[in-house]
């Protein structure tokens, strides 16, 4: 089982390595979170505005763009963290043998994996920061409450980074990441109360949406940007915490099985 002696602050060294690499292309990395919310708001705000009436959510009456803006931050958190610990981590582990090199140092496998998940969450937080500023300028995020979106993005990033790392531990080839993306990420992207309230779903489908971590992240994002939500934030925070711990545990086991032979 997991040995507590395998964890130390040394994991920050691996996190720093990823930061160093990220800084080399930071301009490109900043472009996506800068432009993505603009595109969505333009498309949905201008294109959909005549088609969709106001959305009733958590007792409030919101314009459609007001409704989706916080969810855009939540989905960006998901994509950033999940892509980082799937494709990017897999490349480092399998093609670049970066982890093999690290394992010849005092670093433990547990520290490397923890650092990768923490790094993916950091990327999510970075993207969320820029998006919050952009959306804030457009009036979709209220400050100073909106500052809480940054730690929230890190927290949500941990959950999605952990499940991504678990898939990296079990996937035989990089192409097979299509499977969790198609079967898990995409439906979640669409059905987590992101683009329409979960209450619009048929009653039988609603519990499924509530099981999605993205639902809870979008809930919390709305709480921190416009001060409204459907269910208690305590439930959402609890759910994401358990989700993160559970998949981190699975990820560590899968990676140990995969790399230590």
């Amino acid at each position, binding site marked *: 089982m997991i040995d507590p002696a395998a964890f130390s602050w*040394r994991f920050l*060294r*691996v996190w*720093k*390595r990823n930061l*160093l*690499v990220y800084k*080399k292309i930071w301009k490109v990395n900043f472009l996506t979170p800068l432009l993505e919310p603009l595109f969505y708001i333009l498309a949905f705000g201008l294109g959909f505005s005549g088609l969709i009436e106001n959305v009733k959510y958590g007792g409030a009456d919101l314009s459609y763009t007001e409704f989706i803006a916080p969810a855009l931050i939540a989905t960006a958190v998901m994509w950033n963290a999940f892509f980082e610990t799937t494709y990017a981590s897999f490349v480092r582990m399998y093609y*670049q*043998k*970066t982890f*093999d*090199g*690290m*394992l*010849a*140092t*005092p*670093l*433990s496998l547990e520290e490397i994996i923890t650092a990768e998940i923490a790094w993916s969450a950091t990327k999510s937080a970075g993207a969320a920061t820029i998006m919050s500023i952009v959306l804030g300028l457009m009036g979709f995020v209220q400050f100073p409450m909106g500052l809480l979106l940054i730690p929230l993005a890190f927290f949500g990033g941990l959950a999605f980074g952990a499940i991504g790392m678990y898939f990296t531990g079990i996937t035989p080839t990089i192409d097979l990441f299509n499977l969790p993306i198609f079967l898990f990420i995409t439906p979640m992207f669409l059905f987590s109360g992101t683009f329409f309230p979960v209450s619009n779903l048929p009653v039988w489908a609603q519990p499924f949406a509530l099981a999605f971590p993205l639902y809870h992240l979008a809930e919390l994002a709305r709480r921190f940007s416009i001060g409204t939500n459907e269910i208690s934030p305590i439930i959402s925070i609890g759910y994401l915490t358990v989700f993160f711990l559970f998949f981190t545990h699975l990820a560590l086991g899968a990676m140990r099985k995969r790399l*230590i*032979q």
Partner: protein
Amino acid sequence: MDKIIEIQDLIKQFGEFTAVNEISFSVNRGEFFGLLGPNGAGKTTTIRMLYGFSPPTRGELRIFDMDIDTHFRRIKARIGVCQQENTLDPDLSVEQNLHVFAGYFSIPKKEAAERSREYLEFFALHHKKDAKVMELSGGMARRLILARSLINRPDLLILDEPTTGLDPQSRHQVWEKLEALKKTGLTVVITTHNMEEASQLCDRLVIMDHGKILVDGSPEDLIARYAGKNIIEIEGPDQALIEYVKEHAIEHDDLGRRLILYEPEGKGLNNTIRERFCNEKCIYRNSTLEDVFLRLTGRELRE
């Protein structure tokens, strides 16, 4: 004598397959120790257990008089590893590779910068310090891996086939650097298929095959013991020669088209062969470690 590595009845199994089968050996401080063997002999598996990458199935493995299971961090902090595959970080420059790696050992920044400069000089890579790792030639990449493995000033250096795939120039340069390191009193464990490398560098070596250690000794000692002093290779030996060899109980290997005779010192066999039995082509030469290796592990192809 100060023991750096002590291995007793070490076993490594992968499922049903036993890769390392009850091997025992020890390495003294300051020794240049070789692990030789054909592909699949268990060399890399052994070495991976040494640096804590792969946990042993059974047996005892002590490094610096500590157990790798319970003291992996303290042991790994004092080991330098040059892995067989290129594990350099392609996302980083040459110099950053050393800086970041030093970070994994918690070496302070200033110290890391000094050591990087020192080792880039030593391995003649200073002019490439800002290059991308992908742009390095095979020889340069190998030298950078060596530089990286020294960044923590290890008490034990582990080299897994450090010159495989290099051109002769690069190979000799790596040997020269390893000779220089040896003079500093560094303890080194090396695996190789290159017999010239092993004879030149190793104070002592073991030859492994099928997960077992076959022999243990210094290169000179092993050559004298298993391949005599001189070798005579005879192409197309005739019946008369074969009978002569049997009659005089001369150590030999009969390969059909070719007969190899192992001649102990001062028997004057050379002349007899030259005068009486050399019909086609005969080669007279000194015995080498390669002869020992082939005699002990056989001549069949592996893999």
